[in-house]
């Protein structure tokens, strides 16, 4: 009988290639100790700062007898663990295949196993792997191994592995990385003390001390979310004091796809976020030293993934933003967590082992289950951001309303207090109060002006982005003509032909230059300084002026704009720039929506925008509707959020500006995805100034 034999080269390659870094190999041995029901696993580094050092791992697990060594520990690519899912004490096994162990054992020139099985007190077994012997041999089977038995006085069961004669010195960063990996292998903040892995070096002790500081209770937001066995999710966000701020069910989190569930194993996700910038801290009232907190977050920040109780790298490592938190944070920095200001953990028990680790033990195999798990965590972070943005908007709105309602009461109290004063003082105080009011008004006006400037700049930006093509086309045309002319001038034969066309080309250049002039005028007119002063304005005039201002764009996009005005000529209190910002953004949105029509399927005949104004009691209602494709790909609640856009060149600022300006004018705005003309409809209600 013959059998297939394996070259020792294969053995070396398996060991080197399967475990990409030393710490990953040692973690595999620690996982073996965990699977052997150990309560602790100590790792000692002896003389590793120079070549030839050794690593000693010792645990108090159940140890191994000769059969387990022979049929498990010495079998590469298989293990006894692969045949069961739980350890004798009921732990879910976390190691697999035995390949990780091989990689770790090959870190040195020799590896010695010494083990005292729990089932045979006072007996010790040992076996030594001399890798040089394997290197000398042609096939693996040539090297004979001997499992030695020895009676010992020590009855404490457990296993010790000594990896000796390391081929290279370990540098400080490598040791620190190993310390961090071992500390984070199990959640360092969990109360569970059934297993403790320790690296006996100062770097580990320092990290351990840092972890003990556990600043999580200082977090401004604590997100707790779960997805159950049926794929349904729920989440809540607590304040630093433990008060429930937001609560959401599956439909809130899944948003838009509430009928579908997450096809992943049951999991929990917790995230603690710290507001480090000092701004916008609605719920926080206590504060640790920010420097200390940042140092702590630098070590432990990011969202780690724990599978069956042990950490799966590289999720949550520095530069591994597997939930895209940093990317999304760019949209609303104050309302979203990043890997620098938060820490979290996703915990999956996964008794059926649906999630499979890659062979090199770095990450999970990309499967539908893993994608869905990640989607769940990302959706939850997104849900929290939405809730916080809504909360912030509501808060600002109610603060504004509160100030408005309290103002007359305070003024009345002040007036009564002044009246109650003796006459001489009354005049003096009244005069001082008058002066103070005037100064205050100037201050408020200046702030309003600055705010309007920002709204205008935002509007100019959105308009410029939307119509960049309109300006670019004529410029491109002029350049084309210039190049054509230069080519003609350099070629006497075609020069005569050019001479006949010269007046035609000059006319064309003039037309193009006129178009550029008209477009650039829109921007300049939007920025006119006096438009930022608030006063009473006729709504109809404002609409007509804005319509005229944007006329070059309507013509360029072949759009017919009709305005049906209210005859009573209602007036509103506002800055012209503010009103223009509202209308310009809404009209720009309509024009961009028309451009989204690709092919014939969404074209609704000639392009139309209808604007109307009508009075209703003490308010004026302004309506804009178009016959574009409507609002279809985004929820009507989300269109107001900064950064949300349906268009390729959109900034996502337009409607956020619109809503803010309308609220400043003490009005409100509503949107309809498909209105009377087939496209989007916006209805603005503003108080009339009599």
């Amino acid at each position, binding site marked *: 009988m013959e059998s297939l034999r394996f070259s020792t080269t294969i053995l070396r390659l398996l060991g080197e290639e399967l475990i990409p870094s030393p710490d990953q190999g040692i973690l595999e041995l620690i996982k073996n100790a965990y699977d052997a029901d150990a309560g602790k696993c100590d790792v000692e580094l002896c003389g590793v700062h120079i070549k030839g050092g050794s690593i000693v791992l010792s645990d108090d697990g159940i140890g191994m007898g000769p059969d387990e060594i022979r049929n498990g520990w010495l079998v590469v690519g298989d293990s006894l663990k692969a045949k069961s899912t739980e350890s004798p004490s009921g732990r879910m096994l976390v190691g697999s295949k035995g390949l990780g162990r091989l990689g770790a054992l090959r870190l040195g020139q020799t590896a010695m196993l010494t083990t005292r099985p729990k089932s045979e007190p006072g007996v010790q077994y040992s076996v030594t792997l001399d890798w040089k012997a394997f290197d000398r041999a042609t096939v693996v089977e040539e090297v004979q191994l001997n499992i030695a038995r020895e009676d010992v006085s020590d009855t404490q069961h457990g296993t010790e592995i000594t990896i000796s004669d390391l081929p290279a010195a370990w540098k400080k960063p490598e040791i620190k990385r190993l310390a961090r990996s071992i500390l984070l292998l199990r959640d360092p903040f969990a109360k569970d003390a059934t297993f403790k892995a320790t690296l006996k070096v100062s770097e580990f002790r320092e990290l351990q001390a840092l972890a003990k500081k556990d600043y999580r209770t200082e977090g401004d937001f604590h997100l707790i979310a779960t997805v159950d066995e049926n794929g349904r999710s729920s989440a809540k966000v607590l304040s630093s004091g433990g008060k429930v701020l937001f609560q959401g069910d599956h439909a809130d989190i899944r948003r838009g796809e509430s009928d579908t569930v997450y096809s992943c194993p049951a999991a929990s996700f917790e995230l603690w976020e710290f507001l480090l910038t000092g701004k916008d801290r609605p719920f926080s009232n206590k504060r640790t030293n920010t420097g200390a907190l940042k140092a702590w977050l630098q070590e432990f920040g990011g969202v780690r993934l724990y599978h069956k109780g042990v950490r799966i790298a590289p999720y949550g490592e520095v530069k591994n933003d597997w939930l895209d938190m940093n990317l999304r944070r760019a949209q609303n920095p104050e309302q979203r967590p990043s890997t620098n200001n938060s820490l979290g953990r996703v915990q999956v028990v996964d008794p059926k082992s649906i999630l499979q680790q890659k062979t090199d033990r770095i990450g999970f195999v990309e499967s539908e289950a893993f*994608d869905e798990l990640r989607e769940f965590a990302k959706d939850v972070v997104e849900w929290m951001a939405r809730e916080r943005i809504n909360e912030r908007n509501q808060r600002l709105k109610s603060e504004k309303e509160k100030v408005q309602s309290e103002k007359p009461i305070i003024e009345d109290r002040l007036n009564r207090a002044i009246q109650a004063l003796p006459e001489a003082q009354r005049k003096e105080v009244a005069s001082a109060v008058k002066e103070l009011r005037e100064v205050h008004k100037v201050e408020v006006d200046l702030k309003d002006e600055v705010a309007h400037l920002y709204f205008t700049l935002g509007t100019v930006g959105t308009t410029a982005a939307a119509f960049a093509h309109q300006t*670019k086309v004529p410029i491109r045309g002029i350049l084309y003509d210039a190049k054509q002319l230069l080519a003609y001038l350099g070629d006497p034969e075609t020069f005569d032909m050019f001479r006949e066309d010269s007046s035609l080309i000059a006319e064309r250049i003039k037309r193009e230059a006129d178009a550029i002039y008209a477009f650039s005028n829109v921007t300049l007119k939007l920025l006119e300084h006096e438009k930022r002063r608030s006063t009473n304005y006729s709504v109809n005039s404002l609409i007509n002026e804005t319509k005229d201002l944007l006329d070059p764009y309507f013509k360029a996009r072949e759009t017919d704009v009709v305005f049906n005005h209210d005859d009573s000529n209602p007036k509103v209190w506002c800055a012209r720039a503010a009103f223009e910002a509202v209308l310009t953004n809404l009209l720009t949105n309509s024009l961009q929506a028309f451009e989204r029509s690709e092919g*014939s399927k969404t074209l609704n005949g000639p392009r139309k925008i209808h604007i109307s104004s009508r009075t209703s009691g003490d308010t004026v209602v302004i309506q804009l509707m178009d016959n574009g494709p409507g609002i279809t790909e985004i929820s009507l609640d989300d269109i107001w959020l900064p950064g949300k856009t*349906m268009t390729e060149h959109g900034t996502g600022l337009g409607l956020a500006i619109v809503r803010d300006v309308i609220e400043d004018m003490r009005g409100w705005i509503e949107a309809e995805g498909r209105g009377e003309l087939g496209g989007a409809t916006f209805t603005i209600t503003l108080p009339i100034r009599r």
Partner: protein
Amino acid sequence: MIATKRIAVFEDNANQRERYAGTIQSLGMEPVRVDTPPHFSEIESFLTENGITGVISDHRLTEGHYADYLGAQLLKVCYGLHVGAVLLTSYTKLDSNTTLRIHRRWLPCVINADLLQDPRVELMTALEQVDAEVRQGQLPKQREPFRAVMSITRTETVANRQMVRVLIGQWNPAQEVAFPLEMVPSELRHRIKTDELLVAQVNLDAEKQEDLYFENFELPDADTYRESQAFFDHP
């Protein structure tokens, strides 16, 4: 000598239309300014009835409510009718990854209007090249398709469109290329995930990534998968 004598100009901007027509005329060909473009379903009859033998078109024809289709869609129809067509347009990276990429196989020549240096010379060369491809079946080297294995680096949503980003080892293992997910047959879409491999016909001799086209997507067989996986792990 090319056979394209009557060249139709599809361009939403009237000045630009006039400009291209002037250049065509100066090249000794007859321009046909398309002031009112036909509906998408009537392109074929329009070209036939007007004896059109070549086309120059902008890409964004929907702008200004000019046509109900994009230039790339028009060129695809032209290709099927063996009418040589040049896309002369100012496009963004997103255009090249999306609306142009989808039809790129049927766009024998795309000229970036912003980079035109000598319009007469470049347009003449382009018309000759497209004529050779669509009428005589002579694909230039940079348009020849080869079976290529690609590794999916990520998927993402850009401007509400699902995009796939890949590395093509046989083209440039260091440069990502993007295309819309909708190009992949629906039955294969569940396999479009980071680190998965995909096979397609790709013009591997294209110099620039915007000139790459993809067609005939399929999943790799076991051998291809194993060999390519090793390559992408250790390029």
